[in-house]
């Protein structure tokens, strides 16, 4: 068990512990260890064992067998959402940092934070009625003459899931990214403008390279959040394919099958950890170069 390993480490490497300030991590690690990893152990255990305790890969096989399409769907949805999210939040943060029009940036700064405090479940619920074929959005288009009632399309389904994810996470990632941008030394931006760089090239060549790590954090956290949300696929998603969380819930609620559900959980964690690892390695490389 991981937390045991961790306690072990404390005993065997105590000079190291002091030197590298490992002890500062201990409370947090213990908390996760005892209150999550330990119970998680049982779940993981059930993902790779039979009811009688024998080791098996059949649950994982079954998970891939039945849900490979959903796994792919989940990855695509999450990646697409995170890409849109990155583009949008960088645009907003860049406008706030670089736009010469103070009044506009103030408005923008107020605007983007609006969804920050709206819980996922409420967002999902709002979107369900907003994005539907005859939802408020389409109604508004029809009323304003932009669409005829015949042209309206329902966004419930994959597009709705993406829209909802982006809508909800936008405030979060923009907050982090524009924070990082604001923390950059003003004179660095000035120096670039001074050399004739347009705002766009300043964004791409001066600002973005310096905030990649924050961008990475925002995106990893967003990915993880999206991967673990159940209410959105349940309320916005329609049928198949669907997100893995919905499958897990279905597996448990409908079959009482914890094995396959946990196997799916394992897959889901591996995806998140893979993406996070990618970021962390990149981040470490960058720092090492400095």
């Amino acid at each position: 068990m991981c937390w045991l390993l961790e306690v072990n480490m404390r005993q065997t490497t105590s000079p190291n512990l002091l030197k590298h300030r490992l002890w500062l991590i201990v409370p947090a690690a213990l908390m996760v260890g005892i209150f999550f990893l330990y119970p998680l152990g049982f779940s993981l255990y059930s993902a790779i064992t039979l009811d009688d305790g024998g080791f098996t890969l059949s649950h994982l096989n079954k998970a891939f067998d039945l849900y490979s399409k959903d796994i792919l769907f989940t990855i695509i949805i999450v990646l697409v959402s995170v890409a849109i999210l990155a583009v949008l939040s960088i645009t907003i943060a860049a406008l706030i940092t670089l736009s010469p029009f103070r009044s506009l940036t103030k408005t923008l700064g107020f605007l983007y934070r609006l969804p920050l405090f709206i819980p996922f479940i409420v967002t999902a619920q709002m979107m369900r009625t907003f994005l539907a074929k005859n939802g408020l959005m389409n109604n508004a288009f029809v009323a304003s003459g932009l669409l005829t009632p015949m042209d309206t399309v329902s966004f419930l389904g994959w597009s709705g899931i993406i829209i909802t994810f982006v809508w909800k996470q936008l405030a979060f990632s923009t907050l982090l990214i524009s924070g990082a941008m604001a923390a950059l030394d003003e004179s660095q931006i000035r120096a670039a403008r001074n050399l004739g760089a347009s705002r766009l090239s300043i964004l791409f060549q001066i600002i973005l390279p310096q905030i990649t790590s924050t961008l990475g954090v925002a995106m990893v956290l967003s990915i993880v959040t999206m991967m673990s949300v159940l209410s959105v696929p349940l309320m916005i998603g329609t049928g198949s394919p669907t997100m893995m969380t919905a499958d897990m819930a279905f597996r448990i609620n409908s079959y009482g099958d914890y094995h396959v559900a946990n196997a799916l959980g394992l897959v889901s964690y591996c995806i998140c950890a893979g993406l996070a690892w990618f970021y962390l390695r990149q981040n470490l490389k960058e720092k090492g170069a400095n």
Partner: protein
Amino acid sequence: ETTLNVASAGSQNMVDYVKTYLAPKFEATHPGVKVNVVGTGPGDAGSHKIMEKLSAQNDSGLAKWDIDVAVVHQKIGGEMVEDGLLSKYRSEVKTGDMVSRDSAKNALGINVDGYVMPMFHSQTAIAYNSDFVENPPTSYDELVQWTKKHPKAFGYNGIKNGMSGVSFVTGWIYAYGTDAERLSSAPYDKSVESTWNKAFSELKEFNKNITFTPGNAGTLDMLNRGEIFMGPVWVDMFYSWKEQGKIPPSLKLSLIAPGMPGQPMYYVAPAKAAHPQLAREFIELATSPEVQANGIVKQFNWYPGIDANYVEAKLDKATWEKLFAEITPSDLSKYGKSFPIGPYFDDIKEGYERNVSN
């Protein structure tokens, strides 16, 4: 002051019903007792949470559990009995012998006799908008024809987003696979499943002409917003929404041949409830003919959990008739099926996942 903890799965209406209708009544007759009602969410998930919480307490060997009365779905009720989480209380409550339905004894093939009391019975049926659909289909065959003529106008929610879709699929198997009687009774025969391939491939074909909705409520919602004109819904939910004005009066119900499944909600008492006696008294109150008549039937238009005869006696004719305004008692007895026994049920769902949605 004693607190009686009631956990209720199911829709907000049910939670509200327990909270605002039953609880005050109970508190009035039991001074010093406070009823604490927790809603655990709609659908099987809500029931499942209750089961998991109880089994967690069971596993850690607690002497007293923190739920005294629970309202759960039929399927979970059966599983809880199997896991030994419930107490066999029915014989100890006065209303115990007023139950007549088979579902009080048998939950998807599991014998639950004595462990459960139905709160009400629910049924899936096809809801349609009578403004747009003049001759609603009366059987699955007609429905298939209808969807060919009106693509995307029929909607259901698959099998992962709620039980109404599952019921529809189960009905489909009843119609094109194996009949309901065979699937609803033991013994289980694994080979039966292999005869459904055609049914599933037809369903896959059928699915191309329809709209998928997000959940039980999603179907009703889309009906309400005119995005679909027909779809399978829970009768109890349908009536509640209609009662609250959340769907237009033009929506009607039709139960189609060869039938769709329904299920009851159960009142159960956990095996190690902290207040077993109060729990029994609470259930007794909840299943009394008066409460069933005024609460379940009159207020919500739900089919009563105890024998209808006891309830009908407590109500005026008009109210009683209203219950059968759209689905006649004869339709109900002909087409109101129960769910198949557990293993078949799993076969149906997994078959769907493998052959239809994959």
